[in-house]
């Protein structure tokens, strides 16, 4: 047999089982403690610089001019309007994309048909597109040079540079989030249970409610959380479609941008801190759901 190892003190050569296990342990422990500490330090440093510091910057800059200035910036009427628009866009995106995600994941996992992989890839498209391009395509569709401009005029609604455009952009960029989360769970689960229920005469709604839904509960919640996070934070796509009109078509991130660009830095960071708090809440919610999923 070829001698694969080149290490002279290899346990295979020394022979006894006891010595073997002792040497393995020693090998795994020696230097392992040092490596462990080094790696942990590198990780902590990296995360501190990349994640913690930016958070600190926001909080400290927000409070730089004192608590009253902070309160003024947050309760400013434009901020409230921006918050409302962000909320509206987020809720719309979550509702529509959750409905879609459930139906799409159900379709892909419970039935056999050609083009499954294609369908999955198509659904994932918004995930890989630059947000600016996501906004651009709606301008090209509904904007002044858009081919659907006629339809829009007929219905007498304004999409581009107005609220509907902002909502549409948010729905687009968060489109796959829910389906991406549920699909693996459904695929892993298989269709046996549903088929059994169908054979026993249950309607498809009942099958979904009683058989499928309990399985995807936590993945669904997780997808909804991710979807909300992205919807709240979307900037590029919304920036293209919004008219940047204060109090009308500005979401919270856009409002932050305006404040920052006019060098109203403290106010910008104050409003940003709202988003930071929301982000932290989302992270906490995500972690709770993650542990529930694993349980």
């Amino acid at each position, binding site marked *: 047999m070829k001698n*694969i190892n*080149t*290490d002279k*003190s*290899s346990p295979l050569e020394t022979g006894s089982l006891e010595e073997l296990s002792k040497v393995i342990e020693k*090998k795994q422990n020696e*230097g392992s403690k040092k490596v462990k500490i080094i*790696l*942990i330090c590198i*990780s902590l440093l990296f995360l501190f*610089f990349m*994640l913690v510091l*930016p958070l600190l910057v926001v909080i400290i800059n927000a409070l730089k001019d004192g608590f009253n200035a902070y309160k003024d910036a947050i309760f400013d009427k434009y901020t409230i309007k921006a918050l409302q628009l962000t909320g509206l866009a987020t809720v719309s995106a979550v509702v*529509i994309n959750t409905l*879609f995600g459930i*139906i*799409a994941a*159900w*379709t*892909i996992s*419970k039935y056999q048909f050609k083009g499954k*992989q294609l*369908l999955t890839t*198509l659904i*994932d*498209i*918004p995930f890989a*597109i*630059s*947000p*600016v*391009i996501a906004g*651009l*395509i*709606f301008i*090209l569709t509904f904007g002044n*040079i858009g081919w659907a401009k006629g339809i829009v005029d007929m219905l007498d609604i304004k999409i581009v540079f107005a609220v509907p455009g902002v909502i*549409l952009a948010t*729905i*687009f960029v968060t*489109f796959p989030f829910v389906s991406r989360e549920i699909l693996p769970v459904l695929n892993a689960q298989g269709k046996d249970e549903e088929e059994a229920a169908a*054979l026993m005469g249950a309607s*498809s709604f009942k*099958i979904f409610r009683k058989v499928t839904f309990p399985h995807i509960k936590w993945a669904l919640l997780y997808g909804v959380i*991710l979807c909300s996070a*992205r919807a709240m*934070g*979307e*900037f*590029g796509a919304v920036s293209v479609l919004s008219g940047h009109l204060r109090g009308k078509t500005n979401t*919270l*991130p856009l409002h*932050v*941008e305006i404040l920052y660009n006019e060098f109203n*830095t403290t106010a910008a960071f104050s409003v*940003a801190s709202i988003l*930071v708090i929301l*982000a932290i809440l989302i*992270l906490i919610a995500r*972690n709770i759901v993650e542990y529930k999923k694993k349980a």
Partner: protein
Amino acid sequence: MQQQIVKIKNKKETRVIPGFGLSMGITVTLLSLIVLIPLASIVLTASKLSLKEFVAIVTNRQVVHSYMVSFSCALTAALINSVFGVILAWVLVRYDFPGKRIIDGMIELPFALPTAVAGIALTSLYADQGWVGSIFAKVGIKIAYTKIGIIIAMIFIGIPFIVRAIQPVLEKLDKEYEEAAAILGASRSRIFFKVILPEIFPALLTGFGLALARGIGEYGSVVFIAGNIPYQTEIAPLLIMTKLEQYKYADATAIALVLLIISFLILLFINIVQIRTSKYTNK
């Protein structure tokens, strides 16, 4: 295995679960309305340009430079993220230390934080008067408003992609291979590079591709720190935005189409990697 047996038995696959037509119909309709049709608008608008015009726009010097800036910075950021991502995933999976749960939870911060907030925070941090920027400014290194700043922003948004891609694979890794290697006398670094790394490589590649695609397309977190100097720190998404603001829709569309094609190629690459690995791992 079971599905294969069923397939051989019924050549005509009868659908047991009701509702295929309705659910497929809703899925395809929503998909078309929200994603496919708007997306087609780009191709539609771009096709209104003659080939010569199209080529002229995308080979314009400023445009080409913006592609290069976006791509080179995203590539660098994704590579750096790969290294740190592996370290982070390793530390989170293999080691126990106080505060580990908090750190594990924090990894997703770039996903949860709005890109604009990240953008202004990073800019403020690395500007010459910023906390970190001032340290480097003393040595003469400018971070904000340079390519380095862009790379840092792209690293920020790419962290979760690689860590979260590798973590599950590391967790499921069978320890028996490492133990066998240890018994046969391999040193720890050899075990890592020859046994563990090949196992996590597909996941690493997937995460790398996602981080790369995200970096190329990223707007919000990069545009504040970039400085947006044409030919030097102007990223492609910003150029598209600029053209839009000047109502040069044709230009914007052409540039966007090229960017789209690049993103699709990366997405395709990732999917192929995933399909091939699932063939080996039976997932």
